[in-house]
């Protein structure tokens, strides 16, 4: 079996499959991608049993059907290194060869029959989503998810998808120290359900959202997996939901605030960046709000001290409070309005950051306790 294919097309499919390929696995077949040619279509499959990827493209000159599994890393690396527009792929009796004008590679393959089924049949409810909007929402919360992949904390090593009545969708992520919520009104959506997707699954989804061209895509949820279909790109992604409980994030939203401020986004991120330099290994900045003055200060044994002051609009009490500079910076970076609200509910209670006059994003962060 032999066919010619555009290198870029194949390479982009293989790249999209990357995050779905199992990283640490005892089952070698999962570290490969499955390539299947049938009825003049080339299909690429990858899965780690949690995330499943399927993408396809057409091949004109294929004479017969075939299927094989090849190690993802080697295949992808060789593909990228080929200095040509199109390559000839030949699969014969378990051996895969990649050829161009002067180069020739031969790779061993694994049996495609052993590769698990990646894309299930469609069942349950389906909703239409806009690719760029969802990508934007993911970017605003994904950094809050816990990186700890320990089974005990897998409910935080995730992003929570909450489809509520009235067509609202919230994406929520937290590492128990801070929490990000981004929200959208889908206008018409019949889906009312919520599910947890692992951070790795959502990273793969982000990868695909970035690589695809489709303006919209379909999300189908059947109670145990979410299937994302990008019809214009001929790409599907099946993500198993995590069977674990996400904390009730509504509980941590403060009911009242001690100090409310409206800050200039550019001005605040500027002084935060500057003063953070002095925080060094102490990993903390102090914020002193005194009438209309906000002073950030930091000191550490390895750097020294630093402080800077800006004027702010303030309601409520003066306060001295401390934060992790990284937790503040990562949130302020996500704010797109020229001003944002900085609302403090106490020295040991959550602080809420949100864009000014915009209820579609909220970041809740716990302070550092000053001793």
């Amino acid at each position, binding site marked *: 079996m032999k066919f010619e294919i555009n290198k870029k097309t194949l390479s982009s499919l293989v790249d999209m499959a990357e995050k779905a390929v199992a990283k640490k696995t005892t089952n070698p077949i999962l570290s490969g991608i499955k390539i299947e040619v049938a009825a003049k279509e080339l299909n690429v499959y990858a899965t780690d049993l949690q995330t499943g990827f399927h993408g396809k493209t057409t091949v004109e000159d294929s004479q017969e059907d075939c299927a094989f599994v090849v190690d993802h890393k080697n295949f992808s690396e060789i593909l990228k290194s080929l200095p040509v527009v199109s390559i000839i792929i030949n699969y014969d009796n378990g051996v895969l060869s990649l050829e161009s004008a002067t180069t020739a590679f031969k790779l061993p393959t694994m049996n495609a029959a052993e590769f698990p089924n990646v894309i299930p049949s469609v069942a349950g409810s389906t909703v239409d989503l806009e690719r760029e909007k969802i990508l934007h929402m993911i970017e605003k919360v994904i950094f809050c998810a816990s990186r700890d992949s*320990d089974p005990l904390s897998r409910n935080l090593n995730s992003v929570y998808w909450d489809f509520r009545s009235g067509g609202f969708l919230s994406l929520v992520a*937290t590492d*128990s*120290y801070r*929490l990000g919520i981004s929200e959208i009104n889908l206008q018409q959506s019949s889906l009312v359900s919520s599910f947890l997707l692992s951070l790795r699954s959502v990273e793969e989804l982000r990868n695909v959202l970035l690589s695809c061209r489709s303006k919209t895509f379909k999300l189908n949820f059947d109670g145990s997996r979410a299937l994302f279909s990008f019809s214009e790109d001929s790409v599907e992604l099946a993500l198993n939901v995590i069977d674990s409980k996400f*904390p009730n994030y509504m509980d*941590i939203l403060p009911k009242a605030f001690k100090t409310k401020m409206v800050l200039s986004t550019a001005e605040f991120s500027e002084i935060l960046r500057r003063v953070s330099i002095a925080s060094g290994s*102490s*990993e*903390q900045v102090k914020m002193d709000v005194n009438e209309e003055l906000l002073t950030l200060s930091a000191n550490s*044994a*390895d750097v*020294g001290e630093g402080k800077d002051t800006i004027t702010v609009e303030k309601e409520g009490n003066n306060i001295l409070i*401390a934060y*992790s500079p990284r937790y503040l910076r990562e949130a302020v970076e996500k704010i797109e309005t020229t001003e944002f609200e900085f609302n403090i509910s106490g020295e*040991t*209670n*959550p602080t809420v950051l949100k864009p000014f006059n915009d209820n579609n994003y909220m970041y809740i962060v*716990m*302070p*550092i*306790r*000053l*001793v």
Partner: protein
Amino acid sequence: MKKTKKVKNESDLMPERKIIHVDMDAFFASVEIRDNPSLKGKPVIIGAKPQERGVVSTCSYEARKFGVKSAMSIKMAYKLCPQGVYMHPDIRKYEKVSEELRKIFYRYSFKIEPASLDEAYLDVSQTADLFSGEYNTALKIKNDIRNELCLSASVGIGYNMLTAKLASEEKKPDGLFWIKNQTEFSNIFMNRSIGCLYGIGKVTVKLLESYGIYLISDLQSSTIEFLTSVLGSRGEEIYLACRGIDEREVTPSYQSKSEGREITFQYDTRDFKLINDTIINIIKELAFNLNEQKLWCRTLTLKIKYKDMHTITRAKTLDNPTNSSKEIYESIIRLYNSAPKNQPIRLIGVSLNHFCDSPSIQLSFSDINHSQKDEKFNRLVHELKKKYGQEVIKDPLDFKR
């Protein structure tokens, strides 16, 4: 092939450093005299009452005139100086003064290594210029101590820890001395007896004297091979020290400290109950010491040595520093559970590292209502154990046995 070591100058080894050593004069006794002026001019001996057993921990300079010295038995001291005022040490009080001292040090440097309650090294290499040089820095520290604490200190300035310490000894009490470089070191110490160097005690002096080495200059002319053959591994250290070379860095105590304990089982074992009990005992002890020093730790390490002597270590760095035995146990037991268990275990050890003394705790959403309470509770439990012994209150870990 024989490896020969090239003799280097201190300056080849590291950039020029400025180290200050502060040593309080007769610290405990001076604090007592300061707080009770009627003791002024009297020989004050801190340690124990004359009829009790014990040793002298400090004595005033007046007592020293009678020949009383630190580490001498109280009985002996009383023989030499029956008219002395004998007192028990009030460690709490000295600790407080020591804290005040440290606050003064922090004005002049961030890099401070306390050697004991009354002694500390300051690395002022980066900061001395802010206070018009190392000499003025030392003078300011001395004056601050006198003005604010009404105590006197001997201060030494050196280009490393060794010379700073020797300099503070030089003009005791209330002294200030500066050893600027290796040449100056040699000029001053060349003709002194070898006993003045740190690490050379009575036994070593005798041993070296038997080879005809009496003076620092004799030491300087000995080869490294000779010194290591006589003194073993310490030979190299002394070879460098007699030339005024000392590469040790001033390390703030909480950065360098690590505390650990390991236990070898009488018989290699797979018995989880026994292993778990051992882990609990170790952690209770370590956590108590941690609380005693008012420290928190961030990294926990579990060590397992198997029957075939193969050893593994597993470490976990926590998001926030902890001083709670329960938290330490939970992480350690998780490390234990994920460790291989295909052979009996010979030894088990737990160590705590990455200490800090004023933890900034990143609060989490689960702390919204109860973090302060936990902290106060922990402190209270510790105080109770300290006063009435470990068994007065059941540790949360005892329920995990």
